[in-house]
């Protein structure tokens, strides 16, 4: 049985608990992507991030993405969690965990899920820079 889950959270992410829930006895591979606030972007020093979301649509859209990606690969579970609010340097903003019998489809599914969430999910990121520069909302406008 495949299973797909997505939720937002307000505090620190726990990727390990997703991994424990992801694995089935027929799975030989668990691939995890954790996105972390880093201290730079396009050559500028970043001191922090904050996320907000159009939550209802984002949940529906991400679950649709997981079902589509899961339908295209021999994977078991795809579990995703995204943090909202401020995320300090070094803390996780997203965790994507995919379990599968074999590792190839697990890698492919994690990459596709990440690429599509970035392009399609209405989640907004504000970057705070060092040196007194104005904070900026970053990213690209999605297409129909």
């Amino acid at each position, binding site marked *: 049985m495949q299973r797909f889950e997505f939720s937002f959270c307000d505090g620190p992410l726990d990727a390990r608990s997703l991994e424990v829930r992801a694995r089935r006895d027929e799975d030989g591979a668990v691939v995890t992507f954790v*996105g972390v606030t880093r201290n730079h972007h396009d050559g500028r020093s970043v001191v922090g991030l904050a*996320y*907000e*979301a*159009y939550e*209802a*649509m*984002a949940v*529906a*859209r991400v679950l649709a993405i997981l079902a589509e990606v899961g339908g295209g690969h021999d994977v078991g579970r795809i579990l995703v969690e*995204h943090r909202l609010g401020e995320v300090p340097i070094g803390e996780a*903003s*997203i965790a994507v965990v995919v379990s599968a019998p074999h590792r190839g489809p697990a890698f492919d599914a994690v990459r596709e899920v*990440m690429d599509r*969430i*970035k*392009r*399609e*999910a*209405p*989640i*907004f*990121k*504000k970057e705070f820079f060092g040196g007194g520069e104005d904070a900026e*909302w*970053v*990213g*690209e*406008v*999605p*297409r*129909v």
Partner: protein
Amino acid sequence: MRVHVLLFASLREIAGDSQVEFELGAGATAVAVREELAARWPATRQVPYIVAVNQDYATDEHELSDGDEVALVPAISGG
């Protein structure tokens, strides 16, 4: 007709609110929401965004109905 407009990120900051109600003429399309937004908050003209009607991304030609939820979605960057 009346539509419920949701604002995010820089649009929310410019408007100073995360939701507003717009009164539009019959047969209005999403472009009418853009015009009303720009009229109320001219600074939003600088912000590229796409509309989502009832949680689906839509073109500016999308015809609106009374009671629609119209979200204005600027640059996204989840993950």
